[in-house]
């Protein structure tokens, strides 16, 4: 039996697989299909302080091995989450991570201060990288200085570990990762979606009402692996890797690149039980390869 446990320092996961924010609802949607307690954890859909409308449809377009979305972080807000959803997640023996959003830095602080008073949350994931809420994909994670400032503010009020989720739509991902680390983030998760666009050639209109959206799915995996490798080799905090993971083999690639845990995203749409299948595939590979502890694989990529 492979030991799948993964100690992130601030949080111990029973296995290295979490379901990614925005692809797993608030968790409860998946109860008919998976035992949520089998997961290393899951990250609930991004929460603003107040309920949020989201973007006009069409919000989705499928592309080769990928999906472009422009949902616009529609959601119930922290109060409804705390009243109606969180009580049903509390008993679960898995890490419930809340993805925290904000229209400005003050709102991130408001959300965290509100959630600080609620039980049953393992950590916050700071969503500073959604490409669908401001013009042309603008977000905090595109720049090192505002990332540093926001992470520092949130860390100063947070009673829980903070994971900072980075955008891949940057020139130098390491620079932004280091800014988050310098500001005291407990971990870094990457990557959020790639800013993308698709056009209907018959109507010559963008396929998304928002014009731009974020590309996810297997199409982005090599890009994400590269960025996880770059960041993990240059920061000391744990890195949580994601981007198009569909199988255990895909997840192992991220671990070997330097990720201490992974998030499964778009695959949850295709198969609601994908994350659990992936955990089994990781364990099976480790057993077949004589790997006793999955944590021994982290960052073991060799020279070319």
């Amino acid at each position: 039996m492979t030991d799948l446990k993964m100690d992130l320092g601030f949080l111990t996961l029973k296995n290295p697989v979490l379901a990614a924010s925005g692809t797993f609802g608030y968790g409860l949607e998946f109860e008919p299909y998976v035992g949520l307690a089998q997961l290393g954890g899951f990250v609930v859909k991004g929460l603003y302080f107040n309920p949020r409308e989201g973007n006009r449809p069409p919000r989705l377009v499928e592309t080769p091995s990928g999906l472009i979305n422009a949902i616009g972080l529609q959601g119930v807000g922290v109060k409804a989450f705390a009243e109606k959803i969180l009580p049903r997640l509390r008993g679960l023996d898995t890490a419930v991570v809340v993805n925290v959003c904000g229209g400005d830095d003050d709102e991130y602080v408001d959300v965290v201060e509100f959630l600080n008073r609620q039980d049953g949350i393992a950590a916050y994931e700071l969503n500073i990288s959604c490409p669908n809420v401001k013009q042309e994909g603008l977000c905090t994670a595109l720049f090192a200085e505002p990332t540093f400032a926001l992470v520092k503010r949130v860390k100063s009020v947070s009673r829980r570990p903070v994971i900072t989720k980075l955008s891949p739509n940057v020139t130098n991902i390491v620079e932004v990762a280091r800014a988050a680390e310098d500001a005291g983030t407990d971990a870094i998760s990457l990557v959020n979606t790639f800013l993308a666009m698709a056009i209907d050639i018959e109507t010559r209109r963008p396929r998304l009402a928002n014009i731009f959206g974020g590309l996810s799915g297997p199409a982005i995996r090599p890009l994400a692996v590269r960025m996880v490798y770059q960041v993990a080799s240059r920061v000391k905090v744990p890195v949580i890797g994601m981007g198009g993971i569909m199988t255990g083999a895909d997840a192992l690639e991220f671990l070997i690149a330097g990720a201490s845990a992974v998030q499964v995203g778009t695959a949850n749409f295709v198969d609601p039980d994908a994350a659990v299948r992936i955990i089994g595939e990781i364990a099976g590979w480790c057993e077949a390869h004589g790997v006793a502890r999955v944590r021994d694989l982290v960052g073991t990529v060799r020279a070319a």
Partner: protein
Amino acid sequence: MTIDRNARILNVASWGDYCLFTIESPAVGGGARPGQFVMVKVSNSLFPLLRRPLSIHSASPVGIELFFKIAGPGTEILAGKKVGDAIDILGPLGNSFTVPADLRGKKAFLVGGGRGIAPLYFLGLELKAAGAGITVFYGGRCQVDIPLKDKFEVEGLPLHCSTDDGSYGFEGLVTELLERELGPSRPDLLYVCGPDPMMKAAAQMALAAGIPAEFSLESIMGCGIGACWGCVHRIREDTGDGWLKICEEGPVFPGDRIVWTD
């Protein structure tokens, strides 16, 4: 709500771009209600990546029927499946049409356009079993777009057909046909599924005539289970208008709550 990864295709019929599959799946068929849908994995490769939402054409403890039109690469791959092939279906999903228990003496109109006829067969059978008098309005661009007319007739579901080009039945839109009948033989219930402009026109008629109507909405879907929020439609609620998920809160909505956009 179950994933049946080994749902066997028992029968395939096709008419041009339209296909009718009979699928063995007690797990999905057993509890299905008219108006519900399934998410079908058309391929085990990464293309197409997502499942395809298809409404349930009929259901029994043995399985389901699916009626669909080839509308892109996904449904084209699905249409290539043969009798004996196994497919992966997730369902039954979503809410269902309202079928009151006792409809004796009541009249129901069912209006379907093109592939939108799919859920109305299942619904027609249930309404008939509840005692309702049924009239089905079935429209398409031309005769090839109304391949199921015989199937409705065999089940004793009376049918008015229309084609845009007059190649079969009434020449014109199915909503024009509906409008003509709505006055003289006022139904108690109206159920509609088809392209948005058609549903919008039918919704306006139902509203003007004060007839309760339900509409089955369609959208591209990421997951079908309420997790991605990709398939929303504008819906009126007590708290104001909002983007509701077609997959979870729908696909069936009452006409007076749907906000139609152009």
